[in-house]
């Protein structure tokens, strides 16, 4: 089973600012409230941008992992 019961993995590897945040804001509406989605990105700016986006848009960052140059962010839709 996927970590944090993530319903899908979004591959944003290689995308630069602001695209990861732009894309997640469009994708978050496609899952149900309470579900978690995993985002894979290589943009270091995402480390601060995703929490800022979550704070502003009212969603939750469940966990952030960094492994082998890939940043994995688990986002829960809250509303």
């Amino acid at each position: 089973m996927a970590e944090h019961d993530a319903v899908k993995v979004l591959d944003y590897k290689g995308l630069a600012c602001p695209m990861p945040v732009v894309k997640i804001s469009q994708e978050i509406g496609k899952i149900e409230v309470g579900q978690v989605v995993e985002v894979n990105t290589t943009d270091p700016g995402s480390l601060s941008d995703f929490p800022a986006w979550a704070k502003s848009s009212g969603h939750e960052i469940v966990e952030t992992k960094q492994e082998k140059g890939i940043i994995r962010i688990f986002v829960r839709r809250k509303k």
Partner: protein
Amino acid sequence: MVILLLTNALVYILYALYSSIPLMLARTSKSASRRFSMAIDIEKELAGIKAQFEERPGAKKKLSMIVFSGDLDKHIAAMIIATGAAAMGMEVVLFYTFWGTAALRDPKKKAKGKDFMGKLFGTMLPKGRNKIKLSRMNMAGAGTAMIKNLMKKKNVASLDQLYEAAAAMNIKIYICQMSMDLLGMKMEEMIDYPGLEVVGVATFLDHAKESAVQLFI
């Protein structure tokens, strides 16, 4: 000296009595305790303050930006901020004015019936967002080509992609009427963008005054 002290004390006692009259009245008119009536007052006050806070100018989660520049680098910055703000859940309104309007021209479209100056500006100004140049190190177009190449290599979104994202996120684009008049531009030669509209300065100010973020680029 003693007399002075006594009068002072008298004044104080009178004042204390005077200021407690409304309290005594409140107590006699209603059996509710003094603490209870105070609690209600505080709640009322808080609600009033809250309403004031929410109605104050610039309280809305909204970005109003003037895109004045006709430079490629500044347009990229403007579009990155705009799409980022929309992603954060902000309402975004862009106002294109002066040199910025040239970036909204569609290279495939042509406007008829322009006067001499309009035609002159038309040929001298860049035809659309893919024809605008860097503000520095343009080097007769070599620098601009190099930056575009680099952006592709580093996977930075191009202006085309950013405009596409902007349209998908309902970013509103307005064009300044006066700039279009001055530079001899017509609506027929502008890009197809959902809800593209020609407006004046009052429309911008109306949006700007309620926006938490206002920028001029």
